[in-house]
């Protein structure tokens, strides 16, 4: 607790216990290095063009798109927790709210950053707003993600202004005070936006009638994957949030939230996951028996290529879908932290697998009769860029945890003790 060990004491919330500056920097170092490498790799791709990657005309989307879809699904915890707390008034989830905002912000900004490297002409990204093709799912995604990223930044501001030094500036403090009252509005808009882009990310592949493996029927302009993605995202968001907080607890060696919060997150996650698996099963059944045969493709033919056997299909549904749901719902297992986290991990893995299958397997599978099954391994530049995003997330979260009251619940609660 001596000043020398905490050079940055004055920036850390009063009374908050934090590890010594040295050990904090030690923890940051590897992540900063990884981030540096990622920035270098991204720089290569921007300067020399995408020939730095191992993508090609047939594998036009690679690891990055998978990463984006995965990251954003994980980031769904942000809008969903905000929705629960502010709209559905689940006050007891407040302790993880700030944390959720930071997770969401890092996930979304990271994903957008990768997208900017992924496109061939990043400087023309704004054309989408200038010549929007409203039939395209990607337009929906672009509009909503950029919009929701703005929302997340705004939601992050009050958290940021809670920093001990920043709150000493009256204008900040007053603004924070006023802005905080309006946050529910943003939470509502954010929920609306991310609802749509989580969906349109699913639609992205569902509309590809040229790729019968991904193509799905649906309602109005939206294929069924639109709704499945929303469902899976909100199902897995709380799980991921739980894992992040648990990770933070592991790293800091402190208990940051009560077990009841975990229980609640787990329960919500579990229930939604169960619904998702059910819906997914129905969708898969329709797809196997109606959608795919209609365009002259044999559904089981998709799974006749190694390593994408039909085990993939069932894995995503049972051990990585139903099982975690049960683990997180049943009181017997949900009471035990270990089982709860295990369930959350499985759930996240399942949804990631689902995203992987939809992005990568879709492109690997042949469409023309004389095509063959394609293989693709990302180049080090792709991997490094992705690693950079992970590092970026860890760094931002660590800094936020250290200097902002992520978990310190507001003490404003006025408990009056009556006379005597």
């Amino acid at each position, binding site marked *: 607790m001596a000043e020398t060990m905490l050079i940055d004491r004055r920036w850390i919330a009063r009374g908050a216990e934090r590890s010594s500056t040295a050990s904090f920097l030690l923890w940051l170092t590897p992540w900063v290095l990884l981030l540096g490498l990622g920035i270098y790799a991204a720089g290569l791709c921007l300067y020399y063009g995408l020939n730095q990657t191992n993508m090609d005309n047939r594998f036009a989307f690679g690891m990055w798109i998978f990463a984006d879809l995965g990251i954003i699904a994980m980031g769904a915890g942000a809008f969903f927790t905000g929705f629960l707390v502010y709209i559905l008034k689940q006050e007891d989830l407040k302790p993880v709210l700030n944390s959720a905002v930071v997770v969401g912000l890092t996930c979304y900004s990271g994903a957008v950053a990768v997208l900017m490297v992924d496109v*061939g002409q990043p400087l023309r990204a704004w054309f989408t707003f200038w010549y929007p093709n409203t039939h395209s799912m990607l337009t929906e995604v672009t509009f909503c993600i950029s919009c929701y990223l703005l929302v997340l930044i705004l939601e992050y501001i009050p958290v940021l202004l809670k920093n001990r030094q920043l709150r000493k500036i009256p204008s900040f403090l007053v603004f924070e005070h006023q802005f905080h009252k309006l946050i529910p509005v943003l939470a509502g808009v954010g929920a609306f936006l991310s609802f749509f882009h989580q969906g349109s990310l699913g639609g992205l592949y569902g509309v590809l009638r040229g790729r019968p493996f991904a193509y799905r029927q649906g309602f109005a302009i939206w294929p069924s994957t639109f709704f499945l993605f929303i469902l899976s995202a909100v199902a897995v968001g709380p799980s991921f949030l739980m894992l992040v907080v648990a990770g933070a607890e592991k790293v800091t060696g402190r208990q940051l939230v009560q077990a009841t919060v975990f229980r609640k997150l787990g329960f919500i996650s579990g229930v939604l996951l169960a619904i998702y698996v059910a819906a997914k099963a129905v969708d898969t059944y329709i797809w196997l028996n109606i959608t795919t045969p209609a365009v002259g493709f044999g559904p089981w033919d998709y799974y006749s290529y190694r390593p994408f056997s039909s085990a993939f299909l069932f894995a995503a549904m049972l051990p990585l879908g139903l099982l975690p749901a049960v683990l997180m719902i049943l009181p017997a297992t949900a009471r035990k932290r270990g089982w709860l986290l295990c369930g959350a991990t499985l759930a996240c893995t399942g949804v990631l697998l689902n995203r992987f299958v939809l992005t990568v397997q879709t492109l690997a599978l042949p469409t023309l009769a004389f*095509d063959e099954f394609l293989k693709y391994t990302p180049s080090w530049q792709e991997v490094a860029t992705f690693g950079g995003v992970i590092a970026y997330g860890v760094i931002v979260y660590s800094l936020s945890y250290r200097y902002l009251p992520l978990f310190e619940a507001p003490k404003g609660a006025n408990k009056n003790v009556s006379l005597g």
Partner: protein
Amino acid sequence: MSARYGMVIDLDRCTGCGACMVACAAENNVPALPERATARTGLTPMLVRKLSNGKEGAERREAFIPIACMHCEHETPCVMVCPQQAVEVDKSTGIVMQIPQRCLGCRYCMTACPYHARYFNWWDPQWPAGMEKSLNPGVSVRMRGVVEKCNLCHARLHAAQEKAAAAGKKEIELKDYVPACVEACPTGAILFGNLADEKDPVSIAARSTDSFRLLARIGTEPKIHYKTTQAWIRAQADRNPDHSSEAQHG
């Protein structure tokens, strides 16, 4: 009246020489790529691919199939997905036009295309010193980072239209508008014309019994038709599972 330009490619006449590919590249100022380029990163708006009946030894049969943009008529996949209208169907010609100056390079259209007829400029277009003098006038060079594909030699259509306009005609003479690949084919395997015109040889050929379209059941109604008398070649039109499951595995 609006035309619907399309082709009927006689696979029985294709010897797989590749003249169409080179002629197409020369006409459209497609650069030759750096050493690292492969068959999967190449720029071949017109691409001749090999077909086989999957058998070995004396039983083996091979044929060749030229693949270019199919200029899908219905729910054109690439047009539907492009976020910023960089692809559009020209209503008066039915040609699917790629607008490289507007393309963001997101490659969504490439994943959408079931025919893999779209190509991404992975490298800066470059020519050996002086060779840029031999570039075809009227066809602008595409920059790195954008998607390109066959646009049915739009420069030639433009020339034909100007010629017609100069002669005070509305309709162009089809003989003035012959895409490079059609012109180059040494066996005359590629028949090009206006599918909207009942009497046009191409629409007659397209209606004949031994003509077919690739993945027709997907329902995008491509305007490139193929034609063969060989059953095993015809069988490659659709992805017949039981055929593929024994033939395609590697």
